[in-house]
């Protein structure tokens, strides 16, 4: 018999977790928009719209300290960040396009060398996914192999039902544990009717065909056509659940400070700029080409995955109206 949870009990679950010292991250209204953010009470949970930014910050913060250094009596000492202090976290209300992203990013952060900063957060986070019933024109998750009810990446999965509340399904051991620990908040209920799922307008794409075109068209006027208006603001990368390029910089003085890892974007002019002034990606179309290639070819070549979950955020955020879904759809027709 499926387990269900009422809206009220979901809020209570959050409050219970918070009281136990767990960090709870979920969609929360901040002024005019909803963002994934640490919740302070269950009431703050706002599942009415897709959060403007992705949930990747839960595992891969915009900016994080990776070490600190101090020079004392002429001797420099470097100190590690104590990752043991990272809080146990529950990411609640993650849309499938967000919960699926860590499954893609795990590959790059754990191949060859492990990035413990990312992996420790992953280990300490339980993802409670939410079936998506509110898509918009920019959504295209189904076209890149996901769906509004994709459970991939979720530990526990919530499906909204008619009349309020959710069906709750444990997907992994982490989810089973969370459910069992708070069993009193869930009910057994046989007859439930799930709300209709969001229906992305761009339903399907032939990703293999798109990749095949990309395999053979590094040089193409197409890149100039699509990217001539790109202003290189980087919003698409920052808002993306799968973009993971980063920079490393020091903050502080010579005597004391810390080193930080922080988001970067291949759309930025200086991303690849050499110290000599030479830049392998000298103009914006070359940078935008890298964005498409990385998502739909390079990452696939290396890890067998597409670096996109079809959330559509970059389409909504682009100040000059570049539409990645339309671009790959066009490539698929070439």
């Amino acid at each position, binding site marked *: 018999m499926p387990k269900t949870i009422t809206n009220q009990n979901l809020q209570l679950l959050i409050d219970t977790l918070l009281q136990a010292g767990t960090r709870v991250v979920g969609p929360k209204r901040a002024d005019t928009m909803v963002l994934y953010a640490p919740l302070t009470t269950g009431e703050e949970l706002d599942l009415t719209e897709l959060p403007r930014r992705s949930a990747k910050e839960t595992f891969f913060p915009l900016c994080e300290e*990776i070490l600190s250094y101090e020079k004392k009596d002429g001797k420099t000492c470097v100190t590690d960040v104590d990752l043991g202090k990272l809080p146990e976290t529950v990411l609640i209300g993650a849309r499938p396009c967000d919960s699926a992203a860590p499954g893609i990013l795990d590959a790059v952060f754990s191949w060859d060398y492990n990035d413990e900063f990312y992996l420790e957060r992953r280990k300490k986070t339980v993802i409670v996914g939410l079936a998506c019933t509110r898509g918009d024109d920019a959504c295209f998750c189904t076209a890149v192999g996901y769906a509004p009810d994709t459970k991939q990446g979720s530990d526990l999965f919530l499906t909204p039902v008619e009349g309020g509340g959710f069906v709750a399904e444990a997907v992994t051991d982490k989810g089973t544990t969370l459910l069992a620990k708070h069993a009193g908040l869930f009910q057994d209920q046989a007859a439930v009717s799930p709300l209709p799922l969001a229906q992305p307008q761009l339903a399907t794409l032939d990703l293999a065909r798109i990749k095949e075109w990309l395999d053979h068209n590094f040089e193409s006027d197409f890149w100039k056509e699509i990217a001539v208006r790109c202003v290189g603001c980087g919003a698409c990368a920052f808002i993306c659940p799968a973009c993971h390029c980063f920079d490393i910089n020091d903050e502080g003085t010579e005597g004391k400070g810390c080193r930080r890892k922080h988001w970067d974007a291949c759309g930025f002019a200086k991303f690849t700029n050499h*110290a*000599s002034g030479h830049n*392998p990606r000298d103009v914006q179309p070359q940078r935008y080409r890298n964005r498409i290639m990385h998502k739909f070819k390079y990452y696939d070549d290396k890890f067998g995955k597409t670096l996109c979950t079809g959330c559509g955020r970059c389409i909504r955020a682009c100040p000059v109206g570049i539409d990645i879904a339309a671009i790959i759809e066009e490539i698929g027709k070439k």
Partner: protein
Amino acid sequence: MCIPDKNIYKPYLATIENIIDETPDVRTFRLVFQDEAVRDSFSFRSGQFAEYSAFGYGESTFCIASSPTRKGYIECCFRSVGRVTEALRRLEIGDTLGVRGPYGNSFPIEALYGRNLVFVAGGIALPPLRTLIWNCLDQRDKFGEITIVYGARTEDDLVYKHELKEWQERSDVNLVKTVDPGGNSDTWDGRVGFVPTILEEAAPKSDNCVALVCGPPIMIKFTLPVLEKLGFSDENIITTLENRMKCGLGKCGRCNVGNVYVCKDGPVFTAKQVKEMPQEF
């Protein structure tokens, strides 16, 4: 103890043991790891690179310019052109900097045993080959003839001037040094002309020979056709690609040429591999 166990971004601490000014803006550091265990265990192959940090300013990527046959220290060589390299330049003998590495692939030195070698370098691109040159010279009997063609814009811009002299005096090395037209003084005892031209004049035989080329993109562009003309196949031309890097570990996403990550798949490539890549470097 500063050995990175979990934190892959944590550098070893090293002391600057010696500083050599190669040119007005290019400097060599000889570095000794502060931790004895690191000093003993740190091993690398010619061609690998590292991330060097000036605390408070950040990290910069350079090759390890010394030879792994010379134990107890490593050397790097850098031009002061940016925030980090300017900060590195302000450091003095005895000061501390950070070193992460070694990263990347390396020159296939074992495959070069018994072969004749032609090193072709321009300007500040000698350090990536210099590690291999000394590596070969330190086990000289394993290699055939060794020719070094090295040029820079002016006499001042030649790096490792003291070593050029040493190579010039050795009978088992054929050094052809050159400066661009106009870059020579009255006392210049080398050639005058661009590296590709001088290479063509020197005309090393391609039989049983491998060419190792490192230089600015423009030099590489004009050198490859010369080598081809001299009979070198693309498999027997080895070069290094230098791209902007941050992590050195195949994660930060900026050094790729097509789907090839220079930090992991490189920096050493054959001309054949380079030609198969998208032309984005």
